């Protein structure tokens, strides 16, 4: 990805979209979130969701998959231009995650990420931290997920710039 110094608040990246099939929804739920409304059409129809819908964790995990793919494409473009590529570090976590609407079988969710804050790290001068607002919108234009996550990003100057 780009170096910390090159990342601007307000930048929006379209990450791509994913269609949630009934098979995928059930397979994910069977592994990690075995609730009746994620596993079985008939039981889901009787639940407060009204129809089979994806685990919220599934909706979130597809976001990280599309983000990593996006960063890879970005890295290839940077290398193609002969520019150096920054390391994406670990994430300390996320906050304010809202599952705004159920993601039903057959729904297609488009994901985007917007930079909301960048901060150099005093404790680790080779790294900065960025905060991004991540969103997913279904094929009807309705938001289904929103959260703010943070991640460490390598600095170009490694904290060596004069004070």
């Amino acid at each position, binding site marked *: 990805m780009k170096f910390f110094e090159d990342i601007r608040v307000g930048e929006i990246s379209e990450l791509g979209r994913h269609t949630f099939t009934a098979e995928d929804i059930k397979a994910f739920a069977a592994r990690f979130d075995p609730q009746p409304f994620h596993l079985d059409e008939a039981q889901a129809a009787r639940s407060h969701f009204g129809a089979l819908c994806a685990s*919220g964790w599934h909706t979130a995990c597809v976001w990280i998959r599309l983000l990593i793919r996006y960063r890879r494409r970005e890295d290839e473009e940077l290398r193609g231009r002969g520019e150096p590529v920054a*390391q994406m*570090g*670990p*994430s*300390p976590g996320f906050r*304010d995650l809202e599952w705004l609407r159920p993601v039903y079988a057959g729904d297609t969710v488009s994901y985007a990420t917007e930079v909301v804050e960048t901060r150099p790290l005093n404790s680790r001068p080779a790294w900065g931290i960025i905060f991004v607002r991540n969103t997913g919108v279904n094929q009807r234009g309705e938001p289904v997920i929103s959260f703010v996550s943070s991640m460490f990003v390598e600095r170009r100057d490694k904290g060596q710039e004069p004070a």
Partner: protein
Amino acid sequence: MPRLHWEDFAPGQVTACGSRLVTRAEIVAFAAEYDPQPMHLDEQAARATLLGGLVASGWHSCCLLMRMLSDSLLGEASFMGAPGIEEVKWLAPVRPGERIEARATVLETRPSRSRPDMGFVKFRFELVGASGQPVMSLITSPMFARRPTDAAQAAQPARGGS
């Protein structure tokens, strides 16, 4: 009929929610599918990263916690899903072969204003690693159905003086 309803939760309750071993194979399999970063995929490549070795994806930890809770506390309760997650902190890496324990602490409970048949319970869920320290903490307020008799009473219009 679930054993636990909204009424059964009270602030301060701490519940052990099981433990499990996290294998290298499942760390790599999850990463290959959802979070294919070098630090989650390959020991050699992971050594060059900030965490200095192979670690589980934080999203994998969330999913494992969800599964452990489904197999314990939430599976025994009238769990109706959660509208979101207030905060997740990935405090320390989870390494291959590490045993993790899940723990639930009730922070507060509140009835639903719009739905008399359910209420919210705010939890701090934690995964505790081999060191005995939390490796992840997660704060969320899932929904639980109320006990049928209590739900019927809550649905009655309030009457003064009775």
